């Protein structure tokens, strides 16, 4: 008796739902085993995490606070990934967006009516994010420079540039040596809608729907889909590959840039340490778990944010390391990635010795 993988003849609708669900349960099981090693009761720990993330209105809004940048950067990453452009640079695009928004908020108010400062900060911040993604995109489509390296390296440039600014020229003179810029004027604050959760939530929700519509229903989305799926076919059908990838990456960068704008104008209300705490990297997990679907990315972002917030709670209540939340994230990703095999293949048990293929059954 042998077990072989067999390619499914059609994509199973059921599998698309059941496989992620099963993967999630498996990852919980794995984490439970790990918790058991730490002598923590898994059920109590999970309950504590859940309560920490969703147990009260204020906890829930804190979860949203973390979910918003994950949604926006997650959308940015998934647009690029749909084109098989491996954008690891959401973190830098976020940072550069935050820097640009800070510049507007701090230095443009003398020249603009105060009601225009916030919209201008959002615009300029998104343009900055787009610019930061545009550099590796241009290098890729013009000179075939590997985007994994360039997007990753530009993260450090943007992060260190932000550090330079709030430690150096933009540092608050009245800040008692604290690394950060002066606070923004109040008219440059992004309005909050629930607890610390701000207008960025609405932006993210609207943008997710727009991006979903763009991919599903527009001519541009159709062209991007063909490019991501088979560039040679796209080329043969007269679709302009370089220009489209470049445009899509500008959009992706603008979304991550917006995440940075929302962080500085909505949460810290200044540029300070703690802007870049890895949202742009976690966004990669969000995009994959959402299977590059923009609507799913919203829910996945909330789930991941809940793990982060819940992880903090576990630290306080269960005396476990806060890193447990991060561990669970990792544990979540592996079964999900392994699980994607089962949406395309199914297991078949073969009883006789001779029948059937030896290994992965080939495309019929």
């Amino acid at each position, binding site marked *: 008796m042998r077990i072989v993988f067999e390619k499914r*003849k*059609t*994509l199973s609708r059921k599998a698309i739902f059941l496989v992620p669900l099963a993967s999630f349960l498996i990852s919980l099981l794995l984490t439970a085993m790990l918790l058991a090693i730490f002598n923590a009761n898994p059920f109590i720990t999970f309950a504590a995490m859940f309560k920490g993330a969703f147990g009260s209105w204020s906890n829930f809004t804190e979860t949203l606070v973390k979910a918003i940048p994950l949604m926006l950067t997650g959308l940015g990453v998934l647009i690029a990934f749909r084109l098989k452009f491996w954008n690891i640079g959401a973190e830098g695009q976020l940072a550069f967006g935050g820097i640009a928004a800070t510049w507007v908020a701090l230095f443009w108010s003398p020249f603009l009516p105060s009601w225009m400062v916030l919209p201008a900060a959002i615009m300029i911040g998104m343009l900055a994010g787009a610019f930061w993604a545009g550099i590796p995109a241009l290098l890729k489509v013009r000179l075939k420079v590997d985007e994994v390296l360039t997007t990753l390296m530009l993260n450090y440039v943007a992060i260190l540039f932000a550090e330079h600014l709030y430690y150096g020229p933009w540092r608050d003179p009245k800040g008692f040596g604290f690394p950060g810029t002066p606070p923004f004027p109040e008219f440059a604050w992004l309005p909050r809608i629930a607890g610390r959760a701000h207008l960025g939530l609405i932006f993210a929700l609207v943008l997710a729907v727009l991006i979903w519509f763009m991919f599903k*229903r*527009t*001519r*541009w989305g*159709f062209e991007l*889909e*063909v490019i991501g*799926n*088979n560039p*040679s*076919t*796209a*080329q*043969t*059908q*007269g*679709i*302009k590959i370089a220009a489209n990838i470049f445009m899509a990456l500008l959009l992706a960068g603008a979304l991550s840039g917006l995440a940075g704008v929302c962080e500085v104008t909505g949460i810290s209300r200044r540029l300070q340490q703690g802007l870049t705490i890895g949202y742009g990297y976690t966004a990669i997990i969000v995009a994959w778990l959402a299977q590059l679907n923009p609507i799913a990315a919203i829910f996945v972002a909330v789930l991941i944010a809940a793990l982060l917030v819940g992880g903090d709670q576990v630290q306080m209540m269960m005396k476990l390391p806060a890193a447990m939340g991060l561990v669970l994230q990792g544990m979540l990703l592996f079964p999900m990635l392994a699980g994607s095999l089962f949406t395309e293949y199914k297991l078949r048990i073969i009883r006789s010795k001779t029948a059937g293929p030896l290994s992965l059954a080939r*495309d*019929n």
Partner: protein
Amino acid sequence: METKTPILEMKGITKRFPNVVANDHVDLELYPGEVLALLGENGAGKSSLMNVLAGLYRADEGEIFIRGKRVEINSPRDAMLLGIGMVHQNFMLVDTMTVAENIIMGMSDLPFIPDMEDVSKRIRELSKQYNLQVDPLSYIWQLSVGEQQRVEILKLIYRGAEILILDEPTAVLTPRESKELSGVIHHMTQEGKSAIFITHKMEEVITFSDWVRVLHKGRLVTVKKTRETHPQELARLMVGRDVLFRLEKKARNFGDVALELKDVRALDDKGLPALKGITLNIRSGEILGIAGVAGNGQTQLVEVLTGLRKTTGGTIRIFDEEKANKSPLEIINTGVSHIPADRIARGIAGDMSVANNLVMKCYRKPPLVKKGVLHPSRILDLAHRMIDLFRIDTPTPQTHAKFLSGGNIQKTILARELDACRGLLIAAYPSRGLDVGATEFVRNQMIAQSQAGTAILLISEDLEELVTVADKIAVLFEGRIMGIVPSSEADTEKLGMLMTGVKV
């Protein structure tokens, strides 16, 4: 010479693949110090026979004898130990390593730290002995294609190969390098080595070989001493003896010239000339077939016509407008459709639905799109109509295209391209790999399309198809048109000679 005992004998070699018999009881003999040419069209079974000998394939039936002793060859290593080595068309060399390192790479009896001085010395000796000039210390990336081939040959000799298999050795060489190679082969045979080379070029058969064996559709058709045969005979044998079946075609009046090429030149991906001055024209309603062994410029011809490759000279006029070096989109917009040679790699997007694949050309125009927004129900309607009309066997229009069979993928492409076609169709190997029914369907659709006034350029390696479908046949050889014959006057001997580079 007949009294010599053969160094190699293959008896009754049969190799089957799913749906095709690549070699059907093929015999082969090779004498020491001699060169044997294996001549045949694409798919005649030359490469699979040699892969059996080199240990890459295992024969289903048959026996192999080396110096009269029966041997089992189960791996390339077995072959090497028996003194058999093969130079593949694509060289197996590591660019960033030196000649010497490449030559000893993978040898089993190397010390942990090889003495490279010693290796280099030995290589220098061998290159002198066999007249294969190459510096053991230079890196592969510094070498020309011809020099890289010499490294491949040296690699085999270094490992003690007595029988060298060369798979279309001159396909990648310039004429000067080919001449040098002929000197090398001559030298090697004088030193007692034997060689088999796979080819489809008549000139090489005549200049290189002592013996020639012709394969056709997996069978050995003839064994001749090269001195005792002539190109006409070999050409006829290579293309096959069978009388070509002809459809009675009604004499038709063709329209204006739809496609006109004048002295078109282009380079291949390596920067070598692939099209060396192509001149031809096709009128509306006419089908021009392009015959020729693959790799003689067909790919580049299709690419310059569809905007996928730049020309380096000449003019391409489509409906009387200059279209050389225009973008694919501009050419599509003039009404040119294209059935690509590699239907999976260039023809479809496998993870998109059949419906989306069907509208991949017409999605740009109303009523399918309005202000940049697509109209899914209209796309689906159109897809349903195309699926019915072309009898595409798919569970639903939403099924991903990759789940379809080859024939249905081709029908999907055909439906899309014919629907969008406004006067000129470029079809590359449209029936390759399809079953009888699908082949028939594809051919009939093309004929119907031409009767409706479309000019068609049909590239095919199936002479039967060319003679039945096309009105005229142009033969492509090494980037040139060797001749254009009306299909009513085409016979296998003539086509075979043109395909192998013999002027008629």
